[in-house]
């Protein structure tokens, strides 16, 4: 009992460490001063600055567009790849492909960035939106594969046999049984790819030219010049955005779990009734 108490205390401490910097960052977005020191009184000024900064807003839109586009394409290629890997029966081929798939997952960002830079230069691909998009697609594909593959492996052979037994052709098995079944994996692959893209700094930093900036690259440039409370305001907006997503996700999950549980209990009660 006592250890449990210490445990909770420890967990709370870890959470404080995790959240203090974020809260610190956001708190100063409301400070009337110009540095992250000595709170100077409440103001919305930095938020006003942020929303008036058309360059920053353009960069936010570009970053979101890039994330959306790259994760969509990566999801398609990755899902097809996972289907291919799943169908491959020779273990040597399968393991080789899986190992190759994981290279980009474990490679440090600088290696990916540097090697892609050499690659684009060798192929004379101009640096800019195109090269950044290609890179984001490339490093998002393996995570999609890793999210979809377990779902495919979870799928029992008898389920596919049943679909064929009930008259479906190969294409119908794929579209009516396999795809809906692995849809949750595809969806989480898509979200992972999306966050990878939003989160990336190093790879983009290497392969972007002068014409195209993402949010991360812009923050890096501004942060190297010193404190700018507009960035704090931006953090505030992004945190609220992330928080809403997380809370929404949590309640949807809890809600559906509860509904299922009650339904099941109800149907079991009915069955018992019928048995007696």
């Amino acid at each position: 009992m006592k250890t449990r108490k210490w445990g909770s205390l420890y967990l709370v401490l870890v959470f404080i460490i995790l959240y203090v910097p974020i809260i610190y960052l956001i708190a100063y977005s409301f400070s009337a001063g110009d540095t992250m020191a000595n709170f100077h009184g409440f103001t919305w000024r930095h938020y006003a600055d942020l929303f008036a900064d058309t360059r920053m807003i353009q960069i936010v839109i570009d970053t979101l567009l890039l994330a959306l586009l790259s994760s969509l394409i990566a999801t398609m290629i990755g899902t097809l790849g996972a289907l291919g890997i799943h169908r491959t029966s020779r273990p040597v081929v399968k393991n080789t492909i899986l190992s190759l798939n994981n290279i980009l997952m474990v490679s440090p960002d600088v290696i990916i960035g540097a090697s892609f830079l050499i690659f684009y230069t060798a192929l004379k691909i101009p640096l800019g939106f195109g090269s950044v998009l290609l890179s984001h697609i490339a490093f998002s594909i393996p995570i999609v594969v890793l999210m979809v593959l377990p779902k495919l492996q979870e799928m029992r052979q008898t389920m596919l046999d049943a679909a064929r037994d009930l008259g479906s052709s190969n294409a119908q098995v794929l579209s009516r049984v396999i795809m809906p079944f692995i849809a949750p994996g595809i969806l989480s692959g898509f979200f992972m790819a999306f966050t990878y893209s939003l989160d990336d700094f190093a790879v983009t930093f290497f392969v972007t030219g002068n014409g195209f900036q993402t949010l991360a690259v812009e923050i890096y440039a501004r942060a190297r010049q010193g404190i700018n409370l507009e960035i704090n305001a931006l953090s505030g907006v992004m945190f609220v955005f992330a928080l809403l997503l997380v809370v929404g996700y949590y309640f949807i999950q809890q809600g559906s779990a509860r509904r299922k549980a009650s339904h099941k209990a109800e149907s079991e009660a009915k069955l018992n009734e019928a048995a007696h």
Partner: protein
Amino acid sequence: MAKKSSGTNALFYTPYVLWLGLFVIAPLALIVYQSFFDISGHLTLANYQTYFSSGTYILMTVNSVWYAFIITVVTLLISYPAAYVLHYAKHKQLWLLLIILPTWINLLLKAYAFIGIFSQDGGVNTFLGFFGIAPQQFLFTDFSFIFVAAYIEIPFMILPIFNGIEELDESFVNASRDLGATGWQTFTKVILPLTMSGVKAGVQAVFIPSLSLFMLTRLIGGNRVITLGTAIEEHFLVTMNWGMGSTIGVVLIVAMVIIMFLTGERKKRGSLR
């Protein structure tokens, strides 16, 4: 049936295999290839010679590995107990989401926050001021670099360890207690060995990126700390000596392969489960 599906199989594979070839194999091959060229484009082994003969590069590599090691150990020491407590916590799904939430805040924003917190008149020094301690220099020190790096990596260590502990069958723990082991003995003899795969995954997820956190060395380490990542960035984007940069890149890849090998899941055992 198997014969008919091979046609569609090729269709599935084509874009994916193209990706494997163009964005996995080709860039890796190119970085190795590039490492044999000097700054003026001559084929040479000079880069490797420079790397191995000059003390600076060796020292930097050792330093970089050392820093990554400390960051990993610090992260692990904080994360394992946290993951363990989390496993027994009420509402653990909610707690888990709260662990994940900070990873959605861009890494650069978090680094940027620490520029404020660690600055001369920032949060930490203000706090210390209450106790009458004079302002200290935190920013641009080894301490601040390790602290911020560990801070950023903690969620990536907690998650795999937490998953490892979740997979652990509670009846093993009960069996161990039933057979007379104390709490600590149960932990060292049963829980820790059975959650080792999670620890290994966490170490992998933290150690390798820690070798290449060049933006942190720039923003927080103030160029005092030079890691392999910083050196690569320097050579590629500042001095434009791609050959040397690639050579260091190859060293980093070798380091990565060693780590993967040391922490790799033994395939046989994994498939048995």
